[in-house]
């Protein structure tokens, strides 16, 4: 996928002024996070399961080569084929090869973030194969020519009226006067449009939530059932997954599933969780004749052993997006590439380069909500800080910034110097700000004052009050009591 992450500031600015988007994001705020909280409350073992899920994935990452080779053996043994692909180009070519051999005209797809990474839809279209997204949200945004704005709720940026307009524009064979004023009607129209596509597709492409080394299975989690129709009905099933998705055993996958849906939507378990293993068996009446797994690196092996290795534990539940004040303010598209929210701000620079996505790690208040809810306990704020450090070390241009920081460090290291300077500055600010109560302009602080006032200080610092023996608030309290 083309990136526009370098235009983050412009995109975020526009997003703030998009009334439709702001209304949609307003709804997001409470929904997912309340449901997650309730699901966590219902399961006393939830925190322990989070620790366990982290431990399992850390163990996998330490032994990634071993588990991938075992997974490969089991896929082949089960009658499937496994294709290692270093990057997006290799994966695109392999998928096209498989489709061409099968003389495929149409491909049904169930939602896959890796599919977005390698821009498989555009690539297939260019090669005269029609890709059809089948997840309701993905179907809507495919019709609109948009990309997903949330990992698990790809059309969360749209309202019902926008969906209706899109359906009227694209479903041209249907009666123009039909009613589409309720979500249920929109759903029924999408369902009936997609029914024949499911039944007639030559190839089904799915992602995978996990790969299981013990059995060579790929695990698929959906609520709609679209992934299951995608891998059951066509003659060929292609799974696209990245290296870090592998887990050792069925029990390990189960432990991670216990935290996945609860963290994502607050469900006890998603509606459909399917473990696919190979093509159909000799006596099966349904299922594909061929089963291919595209095992994609696309930058993951570079993260292994690096300070960003923790990011490889991510299971794409979206909890960090749902709890992020920045995501809730600007939505997913502003991030400019496949992912968004805190996990996107860490992962995007790792996959497309810090030079092309340098604003993302800075677009965070580091409030820590993301880390508090991450089922895999990824230290997201720490990783964002790590990117900021790298950025600072790598920047040659920003010499003024570096000098100012050195000055700052000198002051901070010496409490006397620091307090003296602070008392001086506070005195000046208090004198000039006494009348208005705040500043609309300050030297060297344009970045602050252009969007809000800087408040004038309320009085001496805590330390200087403490030194006088009593805090002002205590003195006031004392005076009150003496009066009584």
């Amino acid at each position, binding site marked *: 996928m083309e990136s526009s992450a370098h235009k983050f500031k412009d995109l975020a600015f526009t997003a703030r002024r998009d009334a439709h988007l702001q209304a949609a994001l307003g709804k997001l705020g409470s929904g997912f996070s309340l449901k997650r909280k309730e699901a966590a409350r219902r399961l006393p073992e939830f925190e322990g399961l989070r620790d366990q899920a982290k431990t399992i994935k850390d163990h996998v990452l330490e032994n990634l080569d*071993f588990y991938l080779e075992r997974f490969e053996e089991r896929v082949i*043994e089960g009658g499937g084929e496994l294709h290692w692909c*270093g990057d997006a180009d290799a994966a695109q070519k392999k998928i096209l090869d498989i489709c061409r051999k099968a003389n495929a005209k149409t491909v049904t797809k169930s939602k896959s973030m890796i599919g977005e990474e390698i821009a498989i839809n555009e690539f297939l279209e260019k090669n005269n194969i029609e890709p059809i997204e089948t997840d309701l949200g993905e179907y*809507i945004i495919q019709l609109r020519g948009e990309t997903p704005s949330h990992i698990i709720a790809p059309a969360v940026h749209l309202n019902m009226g926008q969906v209706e307009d899109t359906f009227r524009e694209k479903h041209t064979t249907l009666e123009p006067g039909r009613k589409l004023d309720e979500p249920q009607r929109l759903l029924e129209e999408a369902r009936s449009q997609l029914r024949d596509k499911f039944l007639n597709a030559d190839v089904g492409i799915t992602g995978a939530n996990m790969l299981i080394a013990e059995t060579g299975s790929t695990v698929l989690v959906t609520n709609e059932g679209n992934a299951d129709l995608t891998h059951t009905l066509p003659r060929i099933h292609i799974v696209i997954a990245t290296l870090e998705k592998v887990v050792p055993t*069925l029990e*390990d996958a189960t432990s991670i599933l216990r935290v996945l849906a609860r963290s994502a939507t607050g469900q006890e*378990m998603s509606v459909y969780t399917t473990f696919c*293993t190979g093509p159909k068996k000799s006596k099966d009446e349904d299922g594909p004749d061929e089963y291919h797994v595209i095992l994609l690196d696309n930058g993951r092996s570079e993260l*292994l052993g690096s300070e960003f290795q923790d990011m490889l534990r991510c299971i794409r539940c979206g909890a960090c997006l749902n709890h992020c004040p920045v995501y809730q303010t600007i939505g997913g598209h502003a991030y400019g590439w496949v992912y968004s929210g805190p996990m996107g701000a860490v992962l995007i620079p790792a996959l497309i380069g810090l030079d092309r996505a340098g604003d993302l790690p800075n677009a965070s208040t580091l409030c820590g909500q993301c880390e508090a809810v991450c089922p895999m306990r990824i230290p997201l704020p720490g990783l964002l800080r790590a990117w900021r450090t790298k950025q600072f070390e790598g920047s040659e241009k920003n010499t003024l910034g570096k000098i100012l920081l050195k000055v700052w460090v000198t002051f901070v290291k010496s409490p006397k110097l620091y307090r003296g300077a602070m008392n001086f500055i506070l005195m000046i600010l208090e004198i000039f700000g006494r009348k208005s109560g705040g500043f609309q302009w300050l030297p060297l602080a344009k970045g602050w004052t252009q969007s809000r006032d800087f408040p004038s200080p309320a009085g001496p610092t805590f330390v200087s009050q403490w030194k006088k023996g009593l805090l002002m608030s205590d003195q006031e309290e004392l005076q009150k009591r003496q009066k009584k």
Partner: protein
Amino acid sequence: MSTDREAILRRLKTKLYRDENPITDAFSRLQAPPLNIIPKRGANDLKNKVKNFIEEAEMADATVTKIEGLASLPKVITHYLASQNLPTGIRVADSLVDVNWGSQPLLSVKKGRAKGTDLVGVSRAFAGVAETGTLIYLSGEENPSTLHLLPPTHIAVLMEKDILGNYENAWTNVRLKCEKNAEGATSLPRAVSWVTGPSRSGDIEQTLLLGVHGPQRLHIVVVGNG
């Protein structure tokens, strides 16, 4: 051998400088999968497991009927279809071949995999998991996956004795049923499906809608030992 394979594995092995120990750990993990934390809520006697299963399944928007013995299954299905204003044509899994469908002459029963035109699918669940009210289906000639996916109404037949406390119990039973390779690793059926409630989406303004691509109605018939 593909060159991408060699290159990726070489990168991984370079990055993963380590002692021999973790590999031994990993090897034994696959040989004898250890049990992780299992929530207590599933651990109960059968009667309470059945109760928990039904409560959780209903919370996930499934409907549940309990019967004593398979003999009354056709009657219960006829009643359910009538109560929902549904036609009486059903597509039934071979795993339910012993049921005397002829006892309900109104039912028109077809066998085999589901077609796009079928309105009601009936299949037998391999297990029910009390922890979350989840049904487990194993694909195969006796239980085509399309039966619980394509028709807009799905009726799941679940024997009370197959209601288990947690998913781990179900994996134990799956492993017992499946073939093993020379190293003792399990060969799973093509699709092991966990189903918790009817199909749904919140993709339009986060409104909960049932029946997107999978069934809109999931009716579970729990069959006692009577």
